[in-house]
């Protein structure tokens, strides 16, 4: 499609390009003062029944600060409260507003429209559990005679002298944590199963992660999700801190087709 010696086509860098947050139904309307990445005003570019939430961005300005990431998430998650939205991955930029229509919306009108249709009324929630670290370590040691005896060995001994025992103990704890994470994830999935089966398990990103689930759920029924997770939180109150995040854009439920060619 492109050839390597096309390079001289490039002209002077444009002063502004268009950052794209996500795809929404055309009847979504940004708040007048809504701002996104680099505090630029949020605009909407429509094409038929679908639209893109965008803002101008200076291509020479750095992108990727915590504020930028949060601005991106804020716009998408704020939208997910009121309308279906297909989130783009952070950092998507096209050359201008026409390109938003011609290269993004028009070419994929049908698939975007049908995905938005399916998402109507739904948003993503994250169900997250974090082990209470002292409680979970105690639980593991209490359940393992081997760990208890290794703990006796290292008790109040200098690290240099007990290094092997420490590594052995730590290994037991590490494996036990994995097993507990699996079990507690299964328990959470079981608790959620009467509500929905659109659940994705995320990989842990922290040693003390107990549960990380993305759930696609009706926004109108959020209280049911809260009750279910609340029951778990109550049951696990001394060992796992449970949280729900959302409603947010369905990041874990959108799939990019493989580019052809």
């Amino acid at each position, binding site marked *: 499609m492109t050839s390597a010696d096309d390079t001289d086509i490039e002209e002077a860098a444009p002063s502004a390009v268009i*950052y*794209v947050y*996500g795809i*929404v139904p055309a*009847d*979504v*309307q940004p*708040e007048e*003062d*809504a*701002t996104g990445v680099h505090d630029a005003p*949020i605009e909407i570019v429509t094409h038929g029944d679908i639209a893109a*939430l965008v803002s101008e961005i200076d*291509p020479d300005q750095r992108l*990727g600060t*915590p*504020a930028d*990431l949060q*601005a991106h*998430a*804020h716009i*998408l*998650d704020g939208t997910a409260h*009121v*309308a279906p939205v297909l*989130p*783009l991955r*952070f950092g*998507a*930029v096209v050359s201008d507003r026409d*390109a938003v229509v011609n*290269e993004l919306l028009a070419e994929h009108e049908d698939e975007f429209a049908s995905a938005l249709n399916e998402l109507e009324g739904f948003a993503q929630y994250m169900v997250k559990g*974090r082990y*209470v*670290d*002292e*409680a979970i*370590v*105690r639980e593991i040691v209490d359940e393992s005679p081997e760990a208890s005896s290794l703990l006796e060995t290292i008790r109040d001994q200098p690290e240099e002298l007990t*290094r092997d025992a420490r*590594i052995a*103990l*730590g*290994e037991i704890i590490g494996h036990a*944590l994995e097993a507990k994470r699996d079990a507690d994830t299964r328990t959470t999935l079981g608790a959620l199963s009467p509500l929905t089966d659109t659940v994705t398990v995320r990989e842990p*990103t922290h040693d*003390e*992660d107990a549960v990380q689930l993305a759930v696609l759920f009706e926004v109108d029924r*959020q209280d049911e999700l809260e009750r279910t997770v609340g029951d778990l*939180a*109550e049951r696990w*109150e001394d060992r796992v801190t449970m949280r*729900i*995040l959302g409603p*947010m*854009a369905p*990041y*874990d439920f*959108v799939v*990019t087709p493989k580019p052809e060619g």
Partner: protein
Amino acid sequence: MTTAGGPSSSSLADVIDTILDKGLVIDAYVRVSLVGIELLTIDARIVVASVDTYLRFAEAANRLAIGSEPKGLSDLVSDVKGSGSTKSKTKGVLEGVGETLGELLSGSGSEREPAPRRRRK
């Protein structure tokens, strides 16, 4: 091990976990790409078994108060009691929903306007 992450630091972490590797990839759709993104160095997906991790776990165990005098546990229990038993704990979870979004809203320091609303059909 550190204690379970406080909400203030986890908010950005939650966002990072979510938006950096998820969402539609525009390059698959559109030829024009990208502003150079200067990402923070991120160690997501890093639950790796290593000697350091094991030593850390062992030290966490070593810090546990000894069996018959579970100081840690009683701390925990009084914490729970202090926060008004299970009811308020559950409430804490439920409030987490709004709270987290609140953090997001205020996260960047400046007060952001609410995001788009919908002109109903």
